[in-house]
């Protein structure tokens, strides 16, 4: 994503913070669902799938069980397909298990307007009827445009609407961190 003008990077969460936060979220998921028998993690492309993989690893460490893991591409469910400037690239949805009667935990990196989550819930509904859909996010930056709330939040980061929050992940060749960039309006 190209930002026209970007001020200095402000790290709001470093690699250690991220690891601790994910461990806590893994415990919270287990607590809320009373174990992991019925839990399935579904990561939302692209950032969410790596976080879901990490959560699966952490849960394996705690409970010695592998929970089901899936990947969801929400491109076809977006409500802005007709107004976006560039063609969004569609990737595969890969959910290799039946989501019916499971507690599906959607995993995403940043919760912002809530529109991605709305699309993801529509996408899940087309695949089956989970008994519950829960939401885990690494960062909640506010500014919701829909009545959506996360069940598990890594960190609440207050932002202004023009700010950019970026999650950098090792899986994508970066040093683990979450950063806030304050964008100044380009003078016209």
């Amino acid at each position, binding site marked *: 994503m190209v930002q026209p003008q970007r001020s200095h990077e402000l790290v709001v969460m470093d690699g250690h913070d991220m690891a601790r936060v994910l461990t806590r979220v893994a415990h919270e998921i287990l607590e809320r669902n009373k174990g992991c028998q019925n839990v399935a993690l579904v990561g939302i492309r692209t950032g969410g799938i790596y976080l879901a993989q990490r959560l699966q690893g952490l849960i394996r460490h705690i409970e010695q069980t592998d929970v089901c893991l899936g990947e969801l*591409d929400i491109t*076809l469910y977006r409500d802005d*397909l007709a107004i976006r400037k560039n063609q969004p690239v569609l990737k*595969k*949805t890969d959910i290799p298990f039946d989501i019916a009667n499971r507690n599906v935990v959607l995993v995403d990196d940043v919760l912002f307007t809530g529109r991605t989550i709305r699309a993801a819930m529509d996408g899940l509904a087309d*695949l*089956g009827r989970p008994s519950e859909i829960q939401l885990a996010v690494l960062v909640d930056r506010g500014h919701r445009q829909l009545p959506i709330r996360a069940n598990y939040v890594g960190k609440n980061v207050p932002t202004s609407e023009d700010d950019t929050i970026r999650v950098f992940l090792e899986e994508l060749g970066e040093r683990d961190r979450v950063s806030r960039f304050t964008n100044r309006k380009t003078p016209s």
Partner: protein
Amino acid sequence: MSFQRKDLLGLGSLTSEEIAFILKAAEPFKEISGREIKKVPALRGKTVVNLFFEPSTRTRTSFELAAKRLSADVVNMSPSSSSVAKGETLLDTARNIESMKADMIVIRHSSAGAAEILARQVRLSVINAGDGWHEHPTQALLDLMTIQENKGHVRDLRVAIVGDIAHSRVARSNMHALTKMGAKVRVAGPPTMMPPYLHRFGVEVYYHLDEALADVDVIIVLRLQLERQGSSLFPSIREYARLYGLTAARVKRAARDVLIMHPGPVNRGIEIAHDVADSEAAVILDQVSNGVAVRMGLMYLLAQRRES
């Protein structure tokens, strides 16, 4: 890279990058047809008109399913039940469809260039579903997808196209697509069914099927258009079947893991023997499944196009 064309009229005018892009874009759509609920809302509110001036079951159904699985509304028009029977011109029909605010026309017509004439005159997207002997681009795209899936790549594969090359839009689109993607293409058939322009495609021409099949990785068998019987292209169906029919004995000349494809409808026992059509190597039904995915991907791309 992105695909910014308004229409898909043929593969002759596309670059190899564009062809690869469409194929890549189409891949995720395969999974949707395997779901319990085979529908995504991507083209909700869009209208697709199927305008078929020639009989077709497979292609029309495939386009219709593709559009419906993307949540578009589909209208099927055939000339016998429309104003075309009353003498309306093709362009007038298309302009009327445009006035009703449709978004896409899928057209099959017996005249080469019909799709292009339409595309120049209307603002909505036009997909060529076969125009005369000219092109049938979505068929070649689904063939490429099937080859890629089974072989992992297209480049450097030896592909034989067998049958009536001159009168086959499937052959033309495939020759464009396969050569652009780097395959080594051979065509085989009776001399009366070879068009004069083959040198421009850079394909090898064979008149004996046995020679053409030596070590090939893919065989695309074309349908013998039985309606051409008596047009002096070939003496008899029996003779054609003996000289150019794909039999199990002939398949042995090809590579051991050869892929056998056919665009359908199959004339069993004529261009392809029963046991060959039903053999492990035949992926004719995979082609049909991939057809829906390719058409979904294509419609999705065309609908995403920004008017500049």
